């Protein structure tokens, strides 16, 4: 073993403790030295341990909690633990999906940070053998009155558009929320969905002694070194200068990489033993994980790794987070087949190592052995820590929220429609190519996006949801609501929810209150998932979302996919014609805790008690599902932020309809955010059948008209407005605020 002269010796490392700055604790360092490798690690090895033992790579803090998720269910082909999860959708096909956060990189460099977030999650999808068919983006920013937040929003959206549009994967949905807690800590979560034949399933495994490890894609540069540990540390203004080269995405390269890898998977499956993308902690995490999962060892020669810059150390090569790179394990003797295919796509592909039987992880550089440690010490032996938990004081003795007085419901409605969190996101999603691949049946703007499965009758519905204001008020119930809202969106679109992915955006795990919130919301999510038969098949954890000691609202984003058995059942949120009968499904109470009305009235930090009942939720979803199956509905729309008033207005806009009706609800209840509700519209000829099916679960609100007017008589007043004016307010608000 020999070190480069400029690198500190193992003894110097022990004495000077540079690993602490890399996030490895003294105890961990000692445990690794004494128990796992029986000697002092050298410089390269110390770097590898620091990054592999970071929360970002090892999930050491979150794993004990993530085990509480529910991952079973009859459709699951692959649960968490691989690039992405896989669900059976019949006809020997499968849907593959996963979500990932790119919060910190997007704060530092929003355009490239968001773009490379898209690129990263796409690699996870095609590495499983699936063709990526859709992306969704879930975003959170501080309020738009601050120029910095406008800049972050504009640039993140441009980055997502640049990458997704170029690579040719439609961006079909997502969500955007605004709240001052995301100042200095925006959330950029991206979900990708893929479609595959089950026969093509691949996993990230380095199996078979003697088989070759092939590196393919972009050259390795000094990009984002320590990105993984960086993402695992709290963000403070001071650290903004302490960073290495920004990762830049190259969607053109990734398109070639996707096509080439899928060609190999389709045509040469028998020689491809495993494939994984190089994500966080690049080459080391992909190679070590592939070896660990296959219970094998791996030896690589770093001189063979394609490098963009001269003089890179072993440490830099292994930790680089250069984008658009993949690692393949290919049967010995068959390498040329694979190399030839990559050559045809003009991609760098090199045999950099081979699989060994002895489960050691060995790296050579300049003819010297620079790393020699057990694979397990890098991957499997990471010491999990269940952190202390504490219920935050704000959650003791919570009272119901006050019911705001609403005297002029039309004014309130207009103000709500202009809230950026509620207003149309068209100014954003118009920048995304949502139709490439020519399969998008429902483009952004309805409850869930729908992508048909070509050459079948099936379609996939997909959505991302999380109301963090609710999570803040009650992480357990808020977690249930996040899953339920996602399911409601799927159901309203004509689908059966089949599974979820998630991005758990939280504060520091060493903050007992944050950790408690994580634990509670995971349990809430798990319970709702079991209830809706939507296993968690993949996900991602992003902790340390704090700036200078202040953390975001806990934001466990849920990405859900639903199956539509027959494209004839695709339903959208818009009323279609004048004369449809409009029904409200589900009971309405005075639910203003965490509501947009509460925020509009100046209560910026949500307050009050959440009410939620999973049984009512399930019953109402069943009703809508059944009514769609019986072909009774012209439209279905779930109620979320802004309640009935907002949902009713939204359903009028697409076909420029009016509405007239009457309700027993009060003015303020028009904006109550009671969960588990839908509005649906029914043709007159189907009303009797629908009412028989719905019984007490639905009440008639009124009818659509061809007038430019909305009229709704309430128990204590009346809402009167022009629908065109509401539409202009809703449509224009976000675009104005972004300028």
């Amino acid at each position, binding site marked *: 073993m020999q070190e480069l002269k400029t690198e500190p010796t193992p003894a110097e490392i022990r004495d000077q403790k540079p690993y602490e700055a890399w996030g490895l604790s003294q105890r961990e360092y000692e445990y690794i030295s004494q128990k796992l490798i029986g000697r002092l690690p050298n410089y390269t090895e110390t770097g590898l341990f620091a990054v592999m033992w970071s929360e970002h790579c090892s999930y050491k803090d979150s794993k004990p909690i993530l085990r509480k998720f529910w991952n079973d269910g009859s459709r699951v082909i692959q649960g968490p633990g691989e690039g992405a999860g896989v669900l059976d959708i019949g006809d020997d096909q499968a849907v593959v999906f996963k979500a990932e956060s790119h919060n910190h990189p997007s704060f530092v*460099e929003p355009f*490239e940070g968001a773009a490379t977030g898209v690129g990263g999650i796409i690699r996870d999808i095609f590495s499983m053998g699936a063709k990526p068919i859709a992306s969704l983006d879930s975003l959170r920013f501080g309020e738009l009155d601050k120029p910095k937040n406008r800049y972050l929003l504009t640039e993140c959206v441009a980055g997502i558009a640049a990458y997704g549009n170029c690579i040719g994967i439609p961006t079909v949905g997502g969500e955007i929320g605004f709240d001052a807690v995301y100042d200095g800590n925006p959330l950029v979560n991206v979900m990708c969905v893929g479609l595959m034949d089950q026969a093509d399933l691949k996993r990230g495994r380095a199996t078979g002694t003697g088989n070759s490890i092939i590196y393919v894609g972009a050259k390795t540069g*000094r990009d984002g070194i320590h990105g993984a540990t960086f993402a695992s540390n709290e963000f403070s203004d001071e650290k903004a200068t302490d960073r290495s080269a*920004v*990762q*830049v995405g*190259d969607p*053109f390269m990734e398109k070639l990489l996707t096509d080439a890898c899928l060609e190999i998977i389709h045509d040469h499956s028998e020689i491809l033993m495993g494939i994984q993308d190089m994500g966080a902690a690049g080459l080391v995490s992909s190679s070590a994980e592939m070896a660990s999962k296959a219970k094998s060892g791996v030896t690589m020669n770093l001189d063979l790794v394609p490098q963009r810059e001269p003089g890179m150390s072993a440490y830099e090569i292994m930790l680089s987070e250069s984008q658009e790179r993949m690692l393949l394990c290919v049967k010995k003797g068959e390498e040329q087949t694979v190399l030839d295919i990559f050559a045809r796509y003009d991609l760098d592909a090199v045999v950099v190592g081979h699989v060994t039987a002895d489960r050691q992880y060995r790296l050579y550089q300049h003819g010297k052995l620079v790393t020699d440690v057990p694979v397990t010490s890098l991957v499997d032996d990471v010491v999990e820590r269940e952190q202390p938990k504490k219920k935050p004081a704000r959650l003791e003795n919570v009272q119901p929220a006050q019911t705001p007085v609403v005297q002029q419901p039309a004014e309130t409605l207009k103000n709500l429609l202009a809230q950026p969190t509620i207003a149309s996101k068209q100014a954003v999603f118009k920048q995304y190519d949502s139709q490439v691949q020519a399969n998008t049946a429902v483009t952004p703007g309805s409850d869930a996006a729908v992508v048909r499965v070509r050459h079948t009758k099936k379609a996939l519905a997909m959505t991302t949801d999380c109301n963090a204001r609710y999570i803040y008020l009650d992480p357990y119930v808020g977690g249930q609501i996040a899953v339920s809202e996602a399911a409601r969106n799927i159901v309203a679109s004509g689908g059966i929810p089949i599974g979820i992915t998630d991005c758990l955006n939280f504060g520091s795990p060493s903050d007992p209150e944050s950790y408690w919130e994580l634990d509670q919301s995971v349990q809430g999510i798990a319970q709702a998932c079991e209830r809706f038969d939507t296993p968690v098949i993949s996900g991602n954890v992003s902790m340390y979302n704090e700036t200078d000691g202040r953390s975001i609202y806990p934001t466990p984003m849920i990405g859900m996919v639903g199956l539509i058995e027959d494209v004839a059942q695709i339903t959208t949120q818009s009323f279609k014609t004048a004369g449809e009968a409009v029904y409200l499904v589900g009971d309405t109470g005075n639910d203003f805790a965490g509501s947009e009305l509460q925020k509009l009235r100046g209560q910026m930090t949500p307050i009050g008690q959440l009410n939620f009942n999973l049984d009512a939720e399930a019953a109402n979803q069943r009703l809508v599902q059944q009514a769609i199956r019986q072909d009774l509905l012209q439209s279905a729309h779930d109620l979320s932020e802004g309640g009935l008033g907002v949902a009713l207005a939204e359903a009028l806009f697409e076909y420029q309809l009016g509405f007239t009706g009457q309700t027993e609800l009060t003015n303020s209840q028009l904006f109550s955010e009671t969960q588990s509700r839908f509005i649906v519209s029914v043709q007159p000829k189907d009303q009797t059948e629908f009412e028989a099916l719905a019984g007490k679960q639905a009440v008639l609100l009124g009818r659509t008209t061809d007038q430019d007017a909305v009229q709704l008589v309430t128990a204590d007043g009346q809402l009167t407005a022009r629908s065109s004016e509401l539409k202009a307010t809703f449509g224009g608000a976000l675009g104005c605020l972004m300028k």
Partner: protein
Amino acid sequence: MFLAQVHVTYKPSILDPQAVAIKNAMHRLDFDQVTAVRQGKYFEITVDAPTSDAAETQIEAICDQLLANPNMETYRYEVKELANQ
């Protein structure tokens, strides 16, 4: 009236896929003697400032705030006085 000529280029360690694509295209066109390509942006900005110093201050601020991304790019500029039209 002053004219500023501003060049914004990537820092050396930053991946520049555009330059790579352009270089590859040159090689495909048999311009084999091209050994390196770097690319950047070029701006000509006319400023109605009282003095050259004032113009420079403006340009410096514009570069910092708008034209160059300090995470990835560096800039250089020259300011010269325009003959009165």
